């Protein structure tokens, strides 16, 4: 009997939603389990790091990693799994784009630690205790992994073969990706395994999106009654649909809320936030600079809205740090 292909799942700085997405395959999961040999899935099975280390290089057909790279341990595991896998797939927004944890790139480590362990109003910490990499008490030493300044995507740390987008990836997308992998006909390396067109094209409300859209005021969802049938962008809401990949069936729009961009951009776009910025700015219905500014002011938080999931993967990756600790001389 032919040996079943080996697969592995791993999580970095994530929320576990991607793990749930796999479990959400429900009955289909049993078929997957029957077809492959899962050699590493910390949330569900007992295989340890040593087992992975003991595998020959490239022994695993496909490893799915979700979560962004936030600390030293995650980076180590990414390198280890890369060595042991033929194919490494970035599963979910965090590993592909940085995800919501990537918003931490608007801050630096020190301010995050201060915020959490000192400034929080319910925290009582006069001594100024902070988690330490190494800490000793009475001859006992315990360790914690190191927390980087900058959140990174998986492909900023290791070579990635394919991407499965979404926060979390929709069941349809996961199933299609698994089928593609098991079919043996692999797309070009670096492909995002989802339809390569914008969400607008498959959105159930696309027929109500006008040809010429002009905005005199952007609306925030809590300020207006949201029509349950009309295009959300046409209603003045900040919908990321035009700059976001399709394939998820637009569940957020069916929930009557705008798309927030979790599937990332199409292959023709390098920086999703810049792209949506360009689209929305162009729609502003004014030629006068002051009026333009007034209209644009109705977008409350450009960076957080346009780069909700994709800040680490953007051109700039992070907010410029206050005083860089090290400067590179070579120019």
């Amino acid at each position, binding site marked *: 009997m032919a040996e079943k292909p080996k697969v592995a799942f791993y*999580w970095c*700085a*994530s*929320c*576990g*939603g991607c793990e*749930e997405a796999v*479990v*959400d395959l*429900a*009955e289909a999961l049993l078929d997957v389990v029957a077809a492959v040999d899962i050699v590493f899935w*910390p*949330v*569900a099975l*007992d295989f340890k*790091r040593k087992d992975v280390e003991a595998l020959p290089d490239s022994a695993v057909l496909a490893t799915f990693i979700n979560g962004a790279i*936030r600390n030293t*341990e995650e980076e180590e*595991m990414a390198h280890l799994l890369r060595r042991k896998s033929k194919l490494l797939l970035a599963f979910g927004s965090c590993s592909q784009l940085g*995800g*919501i*944890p990537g*918003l*931490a790139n608007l*801050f630096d480590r020190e*301010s*995050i630690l201060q*915020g959490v*362990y000192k400034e929080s109003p*319910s925290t*009582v*910490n006069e001594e100024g*205790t*902070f*988690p*330490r990499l*190494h*800490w000793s008490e*009475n*001859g006992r*030493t*315990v*360790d*914690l992994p190191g927390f980087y300044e900058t959140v990174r995507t998986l492909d900023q740390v290791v070579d990635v073969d394919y991407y499965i987008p979404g926060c*979390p990836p929709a069941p349809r997308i996961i199933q299609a990706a698994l089928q593609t992998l098991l079919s043996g006909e692999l797309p070009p390396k670096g492909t995002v395994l989802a339809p390569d067109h914008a969400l607008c094209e498959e959105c159930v409300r696309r027929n109500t999106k006008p040809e010429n859209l002009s905005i005199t005021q952007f609306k*925030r*969802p*809590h*300020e207006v*009654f*949201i029509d*349950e049938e009309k295009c959300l962008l046409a209603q003045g809401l900040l919908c990321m649909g035009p700059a976001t990949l399709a394939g998820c069936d637009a*569940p*957020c729009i069916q*929930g009557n*809320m705008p798309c927030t961009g979790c599937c990332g951009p199409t292959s023709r776009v390098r920086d999703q936030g810049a792209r949506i910025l360009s689209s929305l700015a162009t729609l502003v219905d004014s030629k006068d600079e002051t009026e333009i500014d007034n209209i644009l002011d109705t977008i*409350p938080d450009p960076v*957080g*809205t346009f780069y*909700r999931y994709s800040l680490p993967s953007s051109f700039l990756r992070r907010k410029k740090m206050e005083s860089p600790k090290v400067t590179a001389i070579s120019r």
Partner: protein
Amino acid sequence: MPDAKETTLQQVWQDGSAKAGHEYARRRITIDPITRLEGHGKIDIFLDEAGQVERAYFQVPELRGFEKFVQGRPAEDMPQITSRICGVCPTAHHMAATKALDSLYGVDPPPAAKKIRELIYNIFVAEDHALHFYFLGGPDFVVGPEAPRAERNVLGVIAKVGVDTGKRVIAMRRRLRDLIALAGGKAAHPVFGLPGGVAKHVTPDMQTQFQVVAAEAVEFAQFTLQLFRNIVLKNSEYLNLIRSDIYTHRTYYMGLVDESNHVNFYDGCIRVVTPAGTEWKKFRAEQYLENIAEHVEPWSYVKFCYLKPVGWKGFTEGPDSGIYSVAPLARLNVSDGMATPLAQEAYDEFYATLGGKPVHHTLANHWARVIELLYAAERMKELAADPLLTDHNVRTLPTQTPREGIGVVEAPRGTLFHHYQTDENGLIEKANLIVATQNNAARIAMSVEKAAKGLISSSNIPEGVLNKVEMAFRAYDPCNGCATHALPGTAPLVLHVHAQSGSTVAILRRDLSGKVRRE
């Protein structure tokens, strides 16, 4: 001559320090610094000279910093941003955030919106509790703590209860999650929450679906409770395990209750009872800062909650220590009963069996969880049948200038607080989150240490010790992802025991599935 004297002095010094080092080394267990996986708990255990456990550290090695990076974000984005704290209980954060927004804008949702919210919420609690019982914590009992590790996981549960039942569990969970998606857009990271209401109304068609699944859910919950009775309560060994002192702590308890002091996941007042079971305080979410504080330790990224007026007295229990517990057992302890009939019967049976209120046995959480599953299903049925559910008016538009808002819900794993301060534009200036498992963090640490102390000594490290130590924290259904805004689910356990010189005596690994391997 000076040289000879120095040499002798050096020698004496070296001999002396070697001896001292040897003594220290014998006390010290060098724990492998590389944690198997981030976000999972790590436990470091130290032995004293007699080879007994001196100290155990339950470390949570992950942090993402949500409280910081939400600064500058529009408040109305918080339900969807904070839901990414945890992909297992996103709806809990979504709901707490939504309620915080109500408070922030001083706006009251219309009745239909409240019903929709509570309905979605109970569906979620039912689904999450079912997940824990069958996939995470339940295997300890359904298959048995002494059973072979290879079977102590969901597959073992299915083997024990039968494939049909296994499929029924999977299908039930799927149908519940489909309902959340129906009303809320997505099951994982729903989108429905807005200040003053929900994003869309419920159609009659949707209502019919809710009613059908609710009826199934009640049956399913009763089935699960009967399963628990058959497998656990009829087994004296398990009952003894539940009642054993190793897994018992006498702490305060906290949970949300409605006006009749019944358990309510969605709304109510926070009630705290003493270790003796008397009411210590009942307060509204707005007063949480007077009553709850967080303590920092250098060996973990998680902060430990305690009752501020009582004070932080270290990792101890009793009425003088501010440490308290939340989640199913706590909720039952603080309430005067359940709001629905079948759950109330189960509640009475629970306390009759375990000797009255309050129950301090941590493992009883598993039973309490099933009782809550039943309540959630019954409440779902009530709400699904409500004619008001399909009313089109589901939004009250905010008119006030936002400043500060606090929202509280009962997440499946405990009381959850979201507190926001914004500028006049509604952009977050400061956010404070006290997340369910944080409330339990101190007691979890104590439970792990107590279990370790009771079960481990240097001469004897039995295979089952790891599972039993783990059972100490698994009963809380900890969400370390929430607690540090890092990773959810049960924490796999790594126990590395090095004695004396640092050579490895044993490395035991155990994770969610229940498998333990000793190297």
